[in-house]
């Protein structure tokens, strides 16, 4: 039991960025364990299965029964169990999307395996797997040591590891797994795109507004245009979501989304501890607030003291001019 198994995800016709991250890290960990790296593509993902070899997999499995056309817990767990039988992994890696959380915890329970959700680092120390994960809104960083002899399911937070580079001359055999007698107990009756969906957790740049903007009109006049000029998404503090300015979908923080973009601009956000919990690991944090004592400045990379209603229009115009947008 020294192999590593990566559960692949696809975006359109390509491997998802998280899958390239997992293949890169999985390769390292498989080498450290003295095992090989396998990848599993389930249902529609099988279209990109063959690409996993270029990113480091030694063996690719596919599971393509009709019942796997859509995500169901039962279907995906059954497919993963077939792959586990085939390669007896010490470590199973997947992402942290809602579906992968639904799947990963179920798989770990069925396997009586160790489970780590939101892993930001994984290591092999003396042949044992160690996983690091934040909890308590990022105020506590936990490192767990798993005993050898039991598999570990690790769901990895996006952008925790560099993406593996493609090696065009590399490939891996693709083996179709039989998943027999599969009747998922949940029936997916419809899948509809979310109106105004924002995938904040995927955005590289996020502009967030808070109560300092004064009112809802100011939010929509100032925040989305700046986000658009930067090619980013827009977020909101809990206070203005609770006040009904902006849908919950946009909320960043303890009871909203946890994000870690390369640039996070907090405009008129004071920086309550619950808000910081959702964005403190962003690479560069810009805070704009008229109160120089606002807690947000304590974690900001760059701080501007001033009135957001004066600064934001200037900032949007300056960015458009400098980036020729």
């Amino acid at each position, binding site marked *: 039991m020294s192999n590593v198994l990566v559960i692949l995800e696809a975006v359109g016709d390509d491997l998802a960025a998280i899958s390239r991250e997992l293949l890169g890290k999985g390769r390292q960990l498989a080498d450290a364990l003295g095992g090989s790296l396998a990848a599993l593509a389930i249902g529609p993902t099988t279209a990109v299965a063959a690409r996993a070899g270029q990113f480091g997999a030694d063996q690719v499995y596919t599971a393509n029964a009709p019942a796997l056309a859509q995500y169901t*817990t039962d279907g995906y767990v059954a497919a993963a169990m077939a792959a586990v039988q085939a390669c007896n992994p010490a470590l199973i890696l997947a992402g942290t*999307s*809602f*579906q992968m*959380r*639904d799947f990963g*915890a*179920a798989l*770990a*329970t069925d396997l009586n395996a*160790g*489970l*780590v*959700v939101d892993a930001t680092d994984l290591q092999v120390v003396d042949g044992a797997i*160690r996983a690091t994960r*934040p*909890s*308590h*809104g*990022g*105020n*506590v*960083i*936990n*490192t*767990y*040591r*798993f*005993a050898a002899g*039991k598999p*570990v399911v690790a769901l990895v937070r996006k952008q925790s590891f560099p993406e593996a580079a493609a090696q065009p001359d590399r490939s891996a055999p693709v083996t179709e797994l039989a998943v027999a007698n599969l009747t998922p*107990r*949940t*029936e997916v009756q419809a*899948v*509809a*795109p*979310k109106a105004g*969906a924002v995938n904040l957790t*995927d955005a590289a*740049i996020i502009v967030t507004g808070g109560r300092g903007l004064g009112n809802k009109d100011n939010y929509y006049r100032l925040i989305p245009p700046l986000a658009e000029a*930067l090619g980013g998404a827009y977020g909101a503090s809990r206070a203005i979501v609770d006040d009904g300015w902006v849908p*919950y979908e946009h909320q960043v923080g*303890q*009871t909203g989304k946890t994000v870690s973009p390369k*640039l996070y601009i907090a405009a008129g956000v004071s920086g309550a501890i619950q808000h910081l919990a959702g964005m403190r690991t962003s690479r560069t*944090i810009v805070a704009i607030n008229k109160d120089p004592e606002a807690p947000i*400045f304590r*974690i900001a*990379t*760059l*701080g*501007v003291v*001033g*009135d957001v209603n*004066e*600064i934001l229009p*200037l*900032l949007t115009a300056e*960015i458009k001019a400098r980036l020729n947008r």
Partner: protein
Amino acid sequence: MHIVVCLKQVPRDNSVKIRPDLTIDAEGIEKIINLFDEYALEEGIRWNEQHGGKVTALSIGTSEWVEQLRRALAMGATDALLLSDPAFAQLDTIAAARVAAAAIRKLGDVDLVITGRNSTDDESGAFAPALARLLGWPQLTYVGKVLELQPGGTVKVERHLESVIETVACRLPAVMSVIKDINEPRYPSLLKIKRVAKVEPPVWTAADLGLSTADLTPAAQLAERVPPPPRPKGEMIDGPDAAAKVRKLVDKLLEYQVI
């Protein structure tokens, strides 16, 4: 029908400290029902009002937890149950699910378990899936709307995922986890709070639940627990006026290669 709502007690905010023995010190922070579990409770109460039967608030913890169970009763839960044992002190999520699963099996007549999408302290979201697998029931996670719930029949929900909404149905019994958008939890009236102030919910221990030490042992050992590394010291952008500050800010963003 019998609905069980699993509640976790959490600190109101996460400004916790780490003790030398690596346990979490939440001393001095108000204890509340995990926010997402409060939505689960509201949903359970609403369906109980429609279909009758029981809605049991269930929690794992010390006698200190009774206060949150009383709040659940004041909101409209018909029953409360505390699972308490010194052996439950350091459960990981899957072991906690084993404890809850044993209690739900012992209750015997449960049709639906509802809980929050995750706790705001541990944040893994693994409890509901683990519980469902241990019970051998289907799971419906990240539910933003319950479309139908037929006692003895099926449940049909909307799962609100990152960019899509799935409509999913399954037969009961089932386990469901809910998101914040699903409803608006009620505030218990003072009268109801007074009425339940002396209620002592039944307490079940590991022995009552037939749980062994192996069932309760975490799969991993804590090797290290530290506060996050401090962020590098920030820089305040100065200038004679807003336009000058903005120019300087954009210079910096270009220099850092983040735009």
